[in-house]
C-alpha cells in the first residue's frame, strides 16, 4: 500500500495523557470551529486540555503532525491523501481524518491588473479568452496553497472547467496569507485560497472573486480535523472529547446569529488577524466580488460547519475523488490501484460514527454513492473512478481545451 513507513518504527514514547492536546490552525476563516470551541470553553467543558496554535504554512503543519509536535490540526481535506499517495510526501507518523470541519467558502480570485473588466463571475469562456490574451505578454501564473490540497484541486478544476490546460500555465504554492501581497505586486494573475483572503483582495481592489468554490462543487469537503495516527490510537478518548467539542462549536457556528461574534473573535490578532468586517461578510454569504462585479449572496451554500452532520461526516468517496483528481491533473501518474483502501485507512469513519452517536448527530448514509460535482458535468461514482477520468477528458475537449 502507499501507506508511509515511519509511524511504526518512530522512536518517540507514547505521550502521557495529562499532556495538553495541541491543535494547529492556519489563519483562515474556516478555522472557526476549532478556535471557537476553545474560545467558548467547549474543550474544557468536555474535559480535555487543548491549546490552539497558529501555524504559518501547510507543509509545516504536515511535518508537525508527522512529528507529533501537533496532535491535530485544522487542515486541508486533501492533505492526508496527498501525503498517503506521496503527492506531498510525509516522513513520520501518517495522517488520519477524524472529521470534516467545513464546506464551501474558498474562492478563485483573479488579479484586476490582468483580468479586470474582462471576466464576470463564473464566466469560464471569458476567463479562457482572457488567459489566452494574457499569454501573449507573459506566462499566466496562478497560486494555490499546497500541492494535492483542496485549493490546488479547486484551482485545477476552475481552469479545466474553462478548458484551460492547467499544465499550460504556471501554478505555484504560496503560503495563504501571502496571496494578496503577491497579487498586488503583480506576481501572479490568480489564486485559489480560503477566506478571508479572497475578500481582502476584493476589498483592497487588488483582485476580484471569479468563482467561489461552492459554485464549483456545492458543499464540497474543505477542511478536516486531521490527526496523527499515533495520537488517534493512543489517545482515542481524548480525541473523541475534542470532536465532541468541535461538534458543539460547529452547531453554534451554523447559527447565523452567532457569526458576527465569531468573526470578531477569529479576526483577532492571535487568530486570523484580518479585518473582522470582511470575515463577517463572507461568513454571512454576502460576497462583495470586487472588480466592479458587484455583490453576490450565498444563502444555503456559504461557508458551513455542520449542516446537521452532513458537513462533518468524512466520506471515503471524497477521498477517492481527490486521489482521482491527482491522477486527472498529473499530480499522480495514475489512479492508485488501492485508492479505496487508502481512503479507508486515512478516514477514521468508525471513530466518527461513535462520536456522532454520542453527540446525537445523524450520520448520512450516502458514502460511496455517486455524487455531483457541478464543474464536472455528470456524477462521480466512487466505485468506478476510472470512468470519471475518461469523462473528464471528454468534458475538457467539449469545453474547447486542446487535450
Amino acid at each position, binding site marked *: 500500500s502507499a501507506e508511509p513507513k515511519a509511524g511504526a518504527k518512530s522512536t518517540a514514547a507514547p505521550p502521557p495523557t495529562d499532556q495538553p492536546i495541541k491543535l494547529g490552525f492556519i489563519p483562515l476563516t474556516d478555522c472557526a470551529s476549532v478556535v471557537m470551541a476553545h474560545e467558548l470553553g467547549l474543550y474544557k467543558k468536555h474535559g480535555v486540555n487543548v491549546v490552539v496554535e497558529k501555524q504559518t504554512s501547510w507543509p509545516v503543519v504536515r511535518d508537525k503532525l508527522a512529528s*507529533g509536535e501537533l496532535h491535530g490540526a485544522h487542515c486541508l481535506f486533501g492533505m492526508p491523501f496527498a501525503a498517503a499517495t506521496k503527492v506531498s510526501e510525509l516522513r*513520520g507518523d501518517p495522517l488520519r481524518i477524524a472529521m470534516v470541519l467545513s464546506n464551501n467558502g474558498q474562492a478563485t480570485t483573479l488579479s484586476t491588473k490582468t483580468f479586470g473588466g474582462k471576466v464576470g463571475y463564473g464566466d469560464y469562456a471569458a476567463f479562457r479568452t482572457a488567459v489566452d490574451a494574457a499569454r501573449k505578454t507573459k506566462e499566466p501564473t496562478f497560486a494555490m496553497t499546497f500541492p494535492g490540497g483542496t485549493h490546488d484541486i479547486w484551482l485545477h478544476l476552475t481552469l479545466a472547467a474553462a478548458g484551460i490546460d492547467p499544465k499550460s500555465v504556471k501554478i505555484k504554492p504560496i503560503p495563504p496569507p501571502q496571496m*494578496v501581497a503577491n497579487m498586488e505586486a503583480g506576481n501572479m494573475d490568480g489564486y485559489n485560497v480560503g477566506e478571508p483572503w479572497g475578500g481582502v483582495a476584493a476589498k483592497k481592489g487588488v483582485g476580484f472573486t471569479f468563482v467561489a468554490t461552492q459554485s464549483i462543487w456545492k458543499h464540497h469537503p474543505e477542511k478536516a480535523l486531521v490527526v496523527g495516527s499515533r495520537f488517534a490510537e493512543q489517545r482515542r478518548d481524548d480525541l473523541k472529547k475534542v470532536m465532541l467539542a468541535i461538534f458543539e462549536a460547529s452547531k453554534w457556528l451554523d447559527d447565523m446569529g452567532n457569526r458576527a461574534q465569531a468573526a470578531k473573535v477569529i479576526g483577532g490578532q492571535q487568530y486570523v488577524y*484580518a479585518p473582522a468586517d470582511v470575515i463577517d461578510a463572507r461568513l454571512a454569504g454576502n460576497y462583495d466580488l470586487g472588480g466592479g462585479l458587484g455583490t453576490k449572496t450565498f444563502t444555503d451554500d456559504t461557508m458551513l460547519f455542520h449542516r446537521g452532520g452532513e458537513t462533518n461526516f468524512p466520506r471515503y468517496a471524497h477521498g477517492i475523488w481527490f486521489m482521482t483528481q491527482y491522477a486527472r491533473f498529473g499530480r499522480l501518474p495514475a489512479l492508485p490501484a488501492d485508492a479505496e483502501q487508502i481512503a479507508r485507512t486515512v478516514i477514521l469513519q468508525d471513530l466518527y460514527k461513535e462520536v456522532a452517536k454520542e453527540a446525537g448527530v445523524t450520520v448520512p448514509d450516502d458514502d460511496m454513492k455517486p455524487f455531483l460535482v457541478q464543474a464536472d458535468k455528470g456524477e462521480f461514482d466512487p466505485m468506478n473512478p476510472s470512468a470519471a477520468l475518461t469523462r473528464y477528458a471528454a468534458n475538457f475537449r467539449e469545453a474547447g481545451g486542446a487535450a
Partner: protein
Amino acid sequence: MIDEMAFPMPRPLQPRSAWRRSISDAMDRAAPAALQAVRASLWNLASLALALSVWQLVCLTVSPDFPTPLASFRVCVQLLGTAFTKIDGTPGIGFQVLASLRRIAIGFALSAAVAIPAGVLIGVSPTCRKLLDPIVQVLRPVSPLVWFPLALVAFKSMGGVSSSTLFTIFITSLWPTLINTAVGVKSLPGDYRIVAQVFRFSRGRYLRKILLPHSLPYILTGLRLSMGNAWLVIVAAEMLSGDVGIGFFAWDSYNAGGYERMIAAVAAIGGVGLALDRGFNALHRHFDYRGADQ
C-alpha cells in the same frame, strides 16, 4: 564604529608608533565619559533625523502606500506601551523580543560550544582543515529556510519544532565563529610556539596562555558575526516554526498587512541587534591586544 566592525586589520610596522598609539588611546579613555556619551548620542540623533527624512521623502515620492515615519512611530509607541502585557492572548512586543533572545541565546551558545573547538582543531591541524574546509564551504551558503524543514525531519524523534528552530539558529551561526577561530589559531606566530617549547610549557599552559589568548580577538569577532547571523535568521526560523518571538511577530504583522507594526518589529530587531553588536564590540576591544602585537 565602522572601524571596529570588521575583522582584525594589519597594523603599521613601527612598534614605536603602535606603542604611541596605545598611549593616545589611553588618553581618549581618560577623557570624561559623560561628555563623550553626550556627543555620541547627539550624533545618533542626527543620523536618526537623516534616516527619517529620507524615509519620509520615499513616502512622499515613489511609494505613497509605504507607511510614513509618523504613523509607524505612533504604532511603536503604542506597542512599547503594551510591551509587557498580554492583549487578548498575544504577549506584547517585549515578551516577543525576550522569547527570541532566549531562543537565540541557546542556539548561539551551542554553536559557540561546537565552533570554537572545531575551529581550533582546523587551525591547528592542516589535515583537519583540508578535510573539513570543503564541507564548511558547501554548508555555509545554505539558507535557514532550507535548514529548518530538514531539521524538522531529522529531529522528529526529539523535541520536534523547538529543537529544529534551535538547530537552524545553531547551524547558521556556526560558520563565522568556526572560520575566525581557525584563522586566529592559524595566525599564531611561530616564535610564540618556540617560546612555549623553550620554557617547557605544558599542553594546558600552551592552550590557556598562548593559543587561546592569541586567538581570542579573532574568536570574539567570529562570535559577534555569529550573533549577527543568529539574529538575522530568527525571522526565518520563527516564520516557519510559528514559535512566539519577534520574528514571528514581524511575519504575522506582515500577513495581516500591518506594515507599521512590521516596521516596529524591524526597529526592535535592528535595535536589539545593534545592542548585541555593541556589546560584543566592547568585549572585543577589551580583549584585543593587537595594538600591541609586536
